């Protein structure tokens, strides 16, 4: 009879310890789940960004614009400009050789 009286609290204590351990384990596990959720959401958003086409920052074309260069108002006062010289060079061989290299 006395044994029966002690068995009940012991069972209760064991249940409590067991419940505590389960709770502890669940508690240990829960932050990982949250972390994973956080990580997943981060990765997801990151993937979302990287899935978008890579676009460089917009740049303005700042190369100098060539305005019209007026030479009509310059009155020519000579007949011939420049010295002409003719040399007996045949460049066709060089052209053909270079064409083959470049093709």
């Amino acid at each position, binding site marked *: 009879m006395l044994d029966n009286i002690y068995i009940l609290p012991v069972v209760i204590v064991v249940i409590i310890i067991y419940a505590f351990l389960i709770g502890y384990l669940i508690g240990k596990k829960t932050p990982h789940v949250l972390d994973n959720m956080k990580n997943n959401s981060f990765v997801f958003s990151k993937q979302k960004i990287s899935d978008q086409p890579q676009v460089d920052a917009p740049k303005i074309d700042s190369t100098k614009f060539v305005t019209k260069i007026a*030479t009509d108002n310059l009155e020519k006062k000579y007949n011939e400009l420049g010295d002409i010289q*003719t040399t007996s060079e045949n460049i066709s061989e060089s052209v053909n050789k270079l064409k083959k290299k470049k093709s």
Partner: protein
Amino acid sequence: MAGCGLDVGTSFIVLSKDNGGSVEYKDFRDAFYIIKPTTPVATKMIEKGLSGKVFIKDSDGSFIILGKDAIEKAIERNDTANRPMYRGVVSAKEKDAKRVLAFILKEVVGTASEPNEKLVFCVPAQPIDQEDEDFDVGYHEDVVKTVLAECGYDARAINEAEALCYAELEQDDYTGIAISCGAGMTNVCVMLNGEPTVVFSTTKSGDWIDRMSAVATGESDSVVQAEKEGGNFTIGDPNDNPVLSAVSVYYERLIDYTTKQLAHALTGHKSVPKFKNPLKIVIAGGTSQAKGYIELFRNQLLVNNFPLEVKEVVHANDPIHAVAKGCLIASQVLQ
């Protein structure tokens, strides 16, 4: 075959055309000098005095003398002629540079023989020894293209030293190094089997010699230039003429500087190929025409530990026209 080559240089503009078995070159000195008359009488007197010279009259009444006549007139007036180009590109310092360059280019090339005739012109490479905001190759290229398009040409640009490779390295299977020593810059191209692998430039060349010698002797740049081009001197030899003596000394310094820059730029450069055989180095350009230039250049390459094995250092067959010839070959390849 239609097609033209054009060397747009700081000192000379050279047009080249293939006549089937011969090549025709048209040279023009890239210089101008402006005289602005103050009275109507002076206008008439100046115009009479300029008879036989190459000049143009501007809408404001001033006279713009062109080419070698400009240098002669500047010397006559103890002054320095202007250049439409500075260090290989259209001069940002000269107010009238763009207009005068456009006029000279139009006159030298004339109208295209057929619509969209191919024309290849040369541009300098980016300098390795100076960062200059005024040095804008892209803008220079656009200016020249615009002018040539007005004349009916389909114009394309190539590097100046690359053009020299095409003209002079045929026997070496288009493999070697070409150095174009112009007035404004020294351009370098390392080529392997017809492909340029390294191109760069340095900003010191013939004009630097003129400027430094002018400062040393108290003469104008134009006087120094005329003495240098007409004078009999050998680099490294003593000379009784003070101008030529200064020129000779500055030539030595320039060659030493250029070879040092070459050695420095090519040592450990990732794009320099592993050449199987020793290389030929070919040199062209007006500045290279001084006696003793090639010999001293060869020696200084050794002294300054040039990193590549060199077979020979030679002068181009025609140092003034070689770049224009290379541009002409390139224009025919494009056909």
